[in-house]
């Protein structure tokens, strides 16, 4: 299979990989195969959802993110904490403790992604006032979902909210503010995201909707967490740092973004399987009367991201506790103009799942695929390294596998050979037959 030059934050540690098929079976875009005893990722299909990282019993699937030392590369550094970070701590009801601890960690300033989220919510509300947009509007904030739609649900791309996600907005606003304050050029200012998930790393390195992301580095919540824990007790009292309200912080859990749109007719689905079901149904127009659809690849929303520390549902409860003490919302757009939040470049369909660019060739391949599938056993055992017999049949017509890779086909052949041998061995040569 051809591999384009795609960046992915999900990678494989070959040493740790046992070549089992847990990740192969789990992958929602059938992007993983086992070859030569090791898992490989078909890069153009991968949407960085992190399911393989979650399922791998040997911790061979990993997410790439930046080391904490990336901070040293910038003269002025700003922490951009994800709302889900607020759900990681015990007995916490004051966000300022986290933000203060980030400053003690060496950040010159903090710009909450939750603050940017409130601005994006306001921009979304304004966007939804337009009478001519396709409905329902589908959220674009989860990078894994956006990438899933791009490869599997092209017809729904026009429903996708064409606005930057809060992290991108946060980086832009934070860097502009810092440049004004310090007089430093942008390249000396580092906007560093504290992330719950690997898909966000990909969204920074290979952004959609813009040419280049303004985020300069991505740290994992689980790396930053232990430092914050020890620094929190040293945070001076009476620091008022947080500028985000309940609506912005709510983005950390599933349903938060949709609720902040302030429309009653919304749906929020989380967990990649559920997201796919909703997208399938949206494509078939099975829903009527919906204004907004929020989709998150992780169960529970961003609190379910694989780079978090806390169990997603516990984190969700903790997030609620933090939210309780915040005002409803603290941020609104200065005017009616939502253009600063709009994508600069459209997100287009990537037909990576097609059998062939030529329809007639694709038809021929589909016929072969169906024939091959008919010859296979339909056990979907995964021993050949593909997630199902159907996927194997497809791999064969794509020239990526052979029928002999099926252990049941192999056994069938051995049986035939064995029968042949036994038949031959029971036939005595003429020379040794007795004459009667």
């Amino acid at each position: 299979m051809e591999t384009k030059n795609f960046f992915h934050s999900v990678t494989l540690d070959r040493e740790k990989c046992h070549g089992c098929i847990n990740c192969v079976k789990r992958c929602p875009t059938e992007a993983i195969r086992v070859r030569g005893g090791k898992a490989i990722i078909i890069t153009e299909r991968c949407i960085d959802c992190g399911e393989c990282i979650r399922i791998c019993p040997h911790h061979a699937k990993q997410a790439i993110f930046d080391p904490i030392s990336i901070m040293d590369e910038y003269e002025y550094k700003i922490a951009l904490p994800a709302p889900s970070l607020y759900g990681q701590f015990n007995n916490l009801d004051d966000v300022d403790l986290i933000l203060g601890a980030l400053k003690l960690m060496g950040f010159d300033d903090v710009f909450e992604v939750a603050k940017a989220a409130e601005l994006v919510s306001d921009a979304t509300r304004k966007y939804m006032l337009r009478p001519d947009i396709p409905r329902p509007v589908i959220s674009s904030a989860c990078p894994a979902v956006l990438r899933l739609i791009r490869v599997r649900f092209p017809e729904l791309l026009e429903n996708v909210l064409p606005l930057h996600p809060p992290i991108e907005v946060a980086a832009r606003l934070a860097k502009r503010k810092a440049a004004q304050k310090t007089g430093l050029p942008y390249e000396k200012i580092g906007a560093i995201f504290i992330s719950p998930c690997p898909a966000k790393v990909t969204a920074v390195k290979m952004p959609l909707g813009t040419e280049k992301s303004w985020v300069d580095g991505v740290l994992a919540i689980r790396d930053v967490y232990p430092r914050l824990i020890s620094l929190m007790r040293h945070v001076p009292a009476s620091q008022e740092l947080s500028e985000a309200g309940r609506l912005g912080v709510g983005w950390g859990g599933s349903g938060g973004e949709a609720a902040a749109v302030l429309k009653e007719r919304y749906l929020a689905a989380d967990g990649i399987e559920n997201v796919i079901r909703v997208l399938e149904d949206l494509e078939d127009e099975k829903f009527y009367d919906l204004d907004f659809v929020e989709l998150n690849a992780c169960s529970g929303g961003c609190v379910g991201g694989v780079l978090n520390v806390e169990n997603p549902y516990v984190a969700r409860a903790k997030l609620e506790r933090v939210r309780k003490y915040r005002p409803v919302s603290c941020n609104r757009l200065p005017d009616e103009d939502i253009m600063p939040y709009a994508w600069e470049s459209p997100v287009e369909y990537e037909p990576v799942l097609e059998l062939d660019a030529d329809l007639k060739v694709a038809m021929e391949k589909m016929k072969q695929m169906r024939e091959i599938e008919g010859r296979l056993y339909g056990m979907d055992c995964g021993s050949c390294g593909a997630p199902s017999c159907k996927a194997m049949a497809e791999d064969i017509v794509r020239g990526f596998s052979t029928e002999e890779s099926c252990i049941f086909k192999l056994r069938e052949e051995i049986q035939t050979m064995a029968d042949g041998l036994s038949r031959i061995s029971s036939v005595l040569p003429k020379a040794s037959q007795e004459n009667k």
Partner: protein
Amino acid sequence: MANDTIKLELEVPGDDFTRAGEASSTVKGMLKKLGFSPNVVRKVAIAMYEGEINMVIHGGGGQITVEISPESGVSMSLVDHGPGIPNIELAMQEGWSTAPDSVRNLGFGAGMGLPNMKKYSDEMEILSEVGVGTTVNMKVHLA
């Protein structure tokens, strides 16, 4: 050119709402894989899903035959042996429904089935005989 086509025979069970939509979903997946334009895929998926639901609600299930051709597009033939449609013209009106309350309670039976099938297919014919059954033939052209 019949050699170029792919023919599918799909069963629609008559009594299981949870499985309604499986056939159209299978066809949708295939068309996507074949690289049909997103618009064609969508039209087929919606028209066929509506038809499939009708077969479950009114027809007691049946068979769907789908022919996919790289030249002429997608033809679908939905056959059931249900009660038949006494007045096709009336049935084609938006909002006209004979679905029982039990079905309406599930969110179906809004009277949009046949009108939507007409809207999303490029050709449609209904052959129905009361007491014998209904056949709906639909075609979605390429581009």
